[in-house]
């Protein structure tokens, strides 16, 4: 097995050289850290926007920000969380750990990898530069034309389009890189159906990115043409069709939900087996259910369009596909429970967040099935019920998964252990805050509160739910603060993590923390799954395996 490289004390470099080193780096670990830093920065930014939104809605008729500012806020919050945080942060984690997990020394195309990061960086820069021009995107993260086709009325949409183009390219290059790396650079002896579940999830996710992202690029290019070059792709006056946008947009943007959640599901699979001290239950079923989700994920987009008056046949097809996608999702959940069943669970922060992810994602999945029922959708669509649903999936699912990933892999990246008590506090405050924020929104939606409204009149019975929601949002903010404090506190304390602090099974734990340049002094050779456990005869040593 790989030898751990001796810790080399690097000679201290002048600051400029250090910065130049990071800017020009093609090392997958450094690029991974750049990604994570950038994504976390935007996570904080989008979170602050969410707090302003929640403050405005805390009670009826509040005017903390004026309507135009509010519309910009929810547009930038959604766009940022999706395109600058959750989608790319998994590329960030995968950049760091995927080559390590398959026993490779770097990504297949290191320079393309650097390009992916810098495209993302400029994607964020272009989008947020709109604040300096006073023309911030303000039509929601879905930016439906004909509203957005008017370049004079909504100049900010250009920043949104160009930002998304750069982000889309970043995503595409990343996907190509992950696919080639996984297919070509696995350690000798590691078969494709033996890779860690996170690697498998990133592989499937990358194929989804490859298949879906071009459609988004097409849609926003056509929109740009409608805005500036006199075309009428989406304008009925010139023979165009506004619904074309919805079809193109959701053809990418519904799969994007799975692009955001599949890596979290892969990560949860890793964490569950590590902290249950037993191998993943039903590896093949979990792996193939991801393929099922990916394929079905491309045939459900029109469930975002049940209210456009499609025929019974069209609605039936998309409702059926939407319901069926709950089956592979259910397979994962049951296999996760079976993985824990009979285990010796260590309730460390990564494990708490992974369990939290499953419990919250179940709620989002159930409300998803409700929304898949077309007549219920006619009532609940475009209300706060949908806002609650999507946050149970993307926050309860993806963001809890992201924090599980941080607690799981930060010791590998930094070399120091995160404080356990603060991690547990972070988890419980976030879980309570999250449910307090988003559960009442289901009820507000049932009571008829539409989404994307900057204010609401009193006397409609919405105040209680919104106030609870606002209090919860500040609890979430507090929990994130605990995380940040934990990071710096732990960095200062610097308790060494060692190569394998969690006694995990995959190859990233076979090298030092942080790993040396080029990861492995000698490329490891493996024979089968969970190499580090196989090496010592089982997760807990020789215990009758």
């Amino acid at each position, binding site marked *: 097995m790989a030898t751990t490289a001796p810790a080399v004390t690097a000679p201290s470099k002048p600051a400029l050289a250090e910065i130049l080193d990071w800017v020009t780096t093609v090392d997958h670990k450094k690029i991974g850290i750049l990604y994570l830093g950038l994504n976390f920065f935007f996570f904080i930014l989008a979170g602050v926007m969410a707090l302003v939104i929640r403050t405005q809605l805390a009670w009826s008729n509040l005017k903390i920000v004026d309507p135009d500012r509010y519309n910009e806020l929810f547009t930038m919050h959604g766009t940022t969380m999706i395109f600058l945080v959750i989608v790319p942060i998994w590329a960030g984690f995968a950049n760091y750990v995927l080559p390590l997990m398959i026993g490779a020394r770097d990504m297949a195309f290191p320079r393309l990898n650097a390009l992916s990061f810098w495209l993302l960086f400029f994607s964020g820069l272009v989008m947020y530069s709109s604040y300096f021009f006073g023309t911030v995107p303000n039509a929601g993260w879905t930016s439906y034309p004909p509203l957005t086709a008017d370049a004079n009325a909504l100049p900010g949409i250009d920043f949104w389009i160009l930002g998304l183009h750069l982000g889309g390219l970043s995503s595409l290059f990343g996907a190509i890189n992950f696919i080639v790396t996984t297919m070509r650079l696995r350690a000798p002896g590691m078969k494709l159906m033996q890779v860690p579940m996170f690697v498998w999830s990133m592989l499937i996710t990358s194929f989804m990115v490859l298949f879906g992202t071009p459609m988004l690029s097409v849609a926003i290019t056509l929109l740009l043409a409608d805005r500036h070059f006199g075309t009428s792709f989406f304008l009925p006056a010139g023979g165009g069709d506004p619904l074309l946008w919805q079809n193109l947009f959701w053809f990418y943007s519904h799969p994007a939900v799975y692009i955001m959640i599949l890596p979290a599901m892969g990560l949860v699979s890793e964490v569950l087996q590590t902290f249950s001290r037993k191998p993943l239950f039903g590896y093949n079923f979990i792996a193939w259910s991801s393929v099922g989700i990916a394929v079905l994920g491309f045939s459900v987009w029109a469930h975002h369009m049940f209210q456009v008056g499609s025929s019974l046949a069209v609605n039936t097809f998309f409702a059926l596909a939407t319901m069926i996608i709950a089956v592979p999702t259910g397979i994962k959940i049951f296999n996760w429970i079976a993985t824990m069943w009979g*285990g010796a669970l260590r309730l460390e922060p990564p494990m708490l967040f992974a369990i939290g992810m499953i419990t919250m994602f179940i709620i989002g999945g159930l409300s998803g099935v409700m929304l898949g*029922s077309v007549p219920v959708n006619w009532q609940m*669509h475009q209300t706060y019920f949908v806002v609650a649903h999507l946050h149970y999936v993307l926050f309860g699912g993806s963001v809890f998964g992201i924090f599980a990933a941080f607690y799981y892999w930060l010791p590998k990246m930094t070399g120091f252990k995160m404080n356990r008590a603060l991690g547990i506090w972070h988890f419980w405050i976030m879980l309570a805050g999250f449910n307090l924020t988003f*559960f009442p929104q289901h009820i507000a939606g049932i009571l008829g509160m539409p989404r994307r409204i900057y204010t609401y009149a009193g006397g409609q019975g919405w105040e209680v739910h919104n106030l*609870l929601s606002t209090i919860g949002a500040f609890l979430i903010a507090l929990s994130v603060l605990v995380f940040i404090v934990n990071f710096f506190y732990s960095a200062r304390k610097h308790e060494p993590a060692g190569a394998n602090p969690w006694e995990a099974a995959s190859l990233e734990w076979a090298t030092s923390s942080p790993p040396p340049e080029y990861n492995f002094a000698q490329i490891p050779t493996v024979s089968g799954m969970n190499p580090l456990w196989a090496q010592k005869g089982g997760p*807990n040593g020789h215990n009758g395996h």
Partner: protein
Amino acid sequence: MKSAVSARWWIVFILLTIVTVGAVGALLWVTVGQPDRTLEACPPACPYTFAIPSTLAPASDEAGRINFLFTLILALAAIVFVVVEGLLVFTVFKFRNRPPESALQIHGDTRLEIAWTAAPAVVLFVIMGFTLQTMSQVRGPAPADALKVKAIGHQFWWEFRYPNEAIVTAGELVVPVNRTVEVALESVDVEHGFWAPELFGKVDAIPGYTTRLRFTPTSVGRREYGGQCTQYCGTQHAQMRFSVIVLPPAEYDAWVAKQQQPAAAPEALSGNVKAGYDAFFNPQNACTACHQIDGTAAAGQIGPNLTHVGGRAHLAGGILANTPENLARWLRDPQGVKPGNKMVIRQLDEQTIADLAAYLTSLK
């Protein structure tokens, strides 16, 4: 260390239970505990007069069927929730902090996999069956005697046209009880969404398309239901409201007869109503460029038809109660009341505003 973890589990479970019970209690309190507001009780005194909206209090045949479906799926979802989350939490409790050697080293079980693939599939097909049934019931073709209405979305208000009755109005859809209403939706600018939670599921108004929905109000007496645009349509999307007023048949017929009358001829006007009439038709005020008043020369097609504006309960896209004070407030500064709306008006002096308000209020 072990006990510390499990103690926190308990604390937070209790907290979460309290939150959940509290949330359900709030739901019951809001939907059941508060009295309905009827039209008689409120305008013009209340600043805001719609009943508390709720999809759980359906007032039409169609909304009732959807509510039944919603309740059914919610019940199934609740059972699945309790079973799966219960199993999950039980597993975590039962197997937490055990000695590592006790961990079972198993890799899978095909029979179990088949079972937990099939079981959800069965539940989902049941839901799908009820979905199909309800779907065809609530959006099937409307009966021949249905009242046909056209709802036209504008930034940021709704126009209603009754083609067979030759009525054009705004902000308020007036319909008789127990008769199916077939709404044809159009938009003159961007996409809008048309929704009144107690009466029908939402349908978008899409430029270039005519979309349809139907509903059969079943309420008793004179009732008003709130509605709101549900597809983001620009700055004042939040303030694009409307109401559906359901009337007993006789009252509805009377309303139709009244709406079909043109406005009074200027010779019949006097006092500040006449002064308001003159101000309205003063080309410098440009009112007639956007607004129509049947029976007069005003034929603008951009803003709401004002022939019977004085008889409406609300103004400005359903956000102000229709009182002379609110009308004056609106005429004084429409952009201050609803920033970003399409009404542009030059600064009027207070006397002109009062005259205009008097004239418009007289248009019953």
